[in-house]
């Protein structure tokens, strides 16, 4: 299981991830030939354009409040034993970084919610947050 303790400062010191340097989304064009041509091959309608954006998304899965987290407790104790002062409690969770393509951000979010409900989180004990980056 991966540890995660917060986005941003937690990852400071790592090499910058170049994947995030390109534009957040760009257009893909698809054409459906079935809609373009009649039997004679002449164009009946303009080509259909379906636009899909490529996006980065991050899903954070954590235990629900009140659910005992033995791993978080162990990490908390280890931090104390290292003499790091001021951390009152640790809850461990998971981060999923995803490349997604969808018509827009709300479609992407709906699809990712399904992914969380069906697999990525066990909603008996876990909650999830979806970020479209």
């Amino acid at each position, binding site marked *: 299981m991966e540890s995660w303790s917060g986005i941003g400062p937690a990852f400071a010191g790592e090499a910058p991830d170049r994947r995030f340097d390109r534009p957040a989304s760009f257009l893909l064009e698809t054409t459906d030939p079935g809609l373009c041509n009649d039997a004679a091959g002449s164009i009946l309608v303009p080509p259909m354009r379906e636009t899909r954006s490529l996006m980065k998304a991050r899903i954070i899965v954590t235990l629900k409040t009140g*659910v*005992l987290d*033995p*791993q978080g*407790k*162990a990490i908390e104790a280890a931090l104390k034993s290292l003499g790091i002062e001021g951390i009152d409690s640790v809850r461990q969770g998971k981060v999923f970084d995803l490349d997604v393509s969808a018509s827009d951000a709300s479609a992407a979010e709906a699809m990712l919610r399904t992914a969380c409900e*069906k*697999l*990525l989180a*066990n909603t*008996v*004990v876990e909650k999830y947050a979806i970020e479209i980056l």
Partner: protein
Amino acid sequence: MHAAVVVFPGSNRESDVARALRRSGARVSLVWHADHDLPAGTDLAVLPGGFSYGDYLRCGAIAGRAAAMDAVRAHAARGGLVLGICNGFQILCESGLLPGVLMRNVNRRFICHRQTLRVERADTRFTSAYRQGQVIDVCVAHGEGNYFADAETLARIEGEGRVAFRYCDAAGTITVEANRNGSLNAIAGVYAEGGNVLGMMPHPENFVDGLIGGTDGRGLFDSLAA
């Protein structure tokens, strides 16, 4: 009795459970996780112990969504018997066939030892060879066996008499010490609503032969094959 033991990548107790079933008189087939059907005439589907898919994501999470599990769900919906042991119990919870979830042991350790259980009821297809309240000596071996369900679900399980086994001491008393993984209400095994699906963390298949330490696990397989 025809039992189908579903084998996932990372399962490692399928031979032991198959041996225990055959010893009690069952015919046993092994089914690969990618298969879409159980063999015709399957009475009992068994999900064995192990570390399916390396316990990736959560124990049992990926196996719970394998193709063979659709067949197991359909089998259960028809009233067919399903038994999940250890990782199999985790898979049943992840697949939605049983309520609740198995969390990391409260002591954060992989526990592997002999364990006494109290048989909560002897009027089921899985336990008829035992007596109600009987204390049986079997084994546990798991890192995530800490049974958890929300308060409402737990009350329903208890109210409907769906607890199969509880961790207890040798005298049959439920104690904190005997419940080493920290399961709510010391629950070691749970039945689904219809009573045809049982998930349990302990390994009855370990103790079916006196040569290797005990025979208290036989009752479960004898009940099923009877």
